């Protein structure tokens, strides 16, 4: 199993109604690599990340993550893949700490509360941990979302616009976290509009335009 590529796409297409968000994408990403995913708005970056995270399934084509098929091995993939998306996946009415400890309990992590608290201080949210999310700013939500991703310690980390809404110190922190993930051997796919910034982090690049692989 260790020999399988992290992500393998063969003619993957995704349709929303009459619109084709992705059209016959073929690509293979080896393990431990970091991929920069670029392209204009609506080019299919988010759709591609959601497919790899098994949040939705491809209309056509074959998609394997860590050698597992997204059609019938979703649960196994989900245990090893984490997605940082536009939607933060957090409950507005719970506090940051409650959100994180719920996730860590559901993941079956021992000492769930300590783990959640230490992650919160790692992303600089420790002083805000008892506050309900409703009072959080967009940047604070993004920090909580990355803490949620780190909690899972995934083999493949999918980051959709991780730098959006962050202040300069938050950007620096996010960059540190991404570098740390890469040096730990995590496969990272980073979708961003800040191409120059992304190039300094990732060693591979894939450019999408209207749902197809294109030259940047």
């Amino acid at each position, binding site marked *: 199993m260790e020999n399988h590529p992290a992500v393998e796409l063969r003619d993957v297409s995704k349709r929303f109604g009459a619109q084709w968000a992705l059209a016959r994408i073929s690509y293979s990403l080896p393990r431990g690599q970091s991929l920069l995913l670029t392209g204009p708005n609506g080019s299919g970056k988010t759709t591609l990340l959601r497919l790899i995270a098994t949040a939705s399934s491809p209309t056509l084509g074959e998609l394997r993550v860590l050698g597992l098929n997204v059609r019938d091995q979703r649960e196994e993939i*989900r245990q090893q893949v984490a997605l940082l998306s536009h939607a933060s996946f957090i*409950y507005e009415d719970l506090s940051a700490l409650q959100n994180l400890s719920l996730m860590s309990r*559901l993941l079956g992590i021992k000492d769930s509360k300590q783990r959640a608290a230490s992650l919160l201080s790692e992303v600089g949210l420790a002083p805000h941990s008892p506050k309900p999310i409703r009072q959080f700013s967009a940047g604070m939500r993004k920090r909580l979302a990355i803490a949620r991703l780190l909690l899972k310690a995934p083999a493949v980390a999918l980051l959709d616009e991780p730098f959006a809404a962050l202040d300069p110190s938050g950007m620096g922190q996010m960059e540190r976290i991404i570098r740390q993930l890469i040096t730990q051997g995590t496969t990272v796919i980073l979708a961003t509009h800040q191409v120059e910034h992304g190039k300094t982090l990732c060693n591979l690049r894939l450019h999408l335009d209207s749902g197809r692989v294109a030259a940047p």
Partner: protein
Amino acid sequence: MNGSPRIGLLRSLALVLAKDILIEWRTRARLNALVIFAFGTLLIFSFALGPDTQLLQRNAGGYLWLALLFASLMALGESFRIERENSALDGLRLLPVDPRALFLGKALGNAAVLVGLAFVLVPVMIGLFGVSISLSFGLLAVTLVLGCLAISAPGTLYSAVASNARARDVLLPLLLFPLIIPALLAAVKATTVVLQGDPMSQLRSWFGLLAGFNLVYWGLGFALFPLVIEE
């Protein structure tokens, strides 16, 4: 890669349920509004049907369940609005949490809210309509619990469907009302029998119908909910 150990269905069910109850507790104002809404519905029945105390007394069970049914629409809609905000339910699904545990947790959470509401409404009903319990309070409690469970299982399944569709506020009652009729009928009849005595010993068959309804729809929800929430 340190693959996260999976936790069992029952444990994830308990965690999802505990999460829902915690959210309900932290947003008590919403819960209070629900109670006041149901209370207002009971009051409106008294005004709409005039001060004919005998009529009100005879139909008290029906009014109680209609108030609960209307309140359940709001509770169900609210319960999935919370999950839709920030796509939190998607987050749990991708964690991964067993979708069947998600169904059982959410449905039990909704049932708990309804049972709580029912127990608050009973004294109001007794006071407002001048009824008394002629069989035991225990039997009334069984009726309330069975009836609320019967609303919540199909309600949770349909709410998950309707919450993603257009016109979701119209769609949920349109789907739920015809479906719920057997359970509503049985719950109303059982409540009336408990309040007014059971000369023909019908209670057993109405309980049987409620139990059967619950069995069918908790089973169907358990089996079909994963299909509903996966994309």
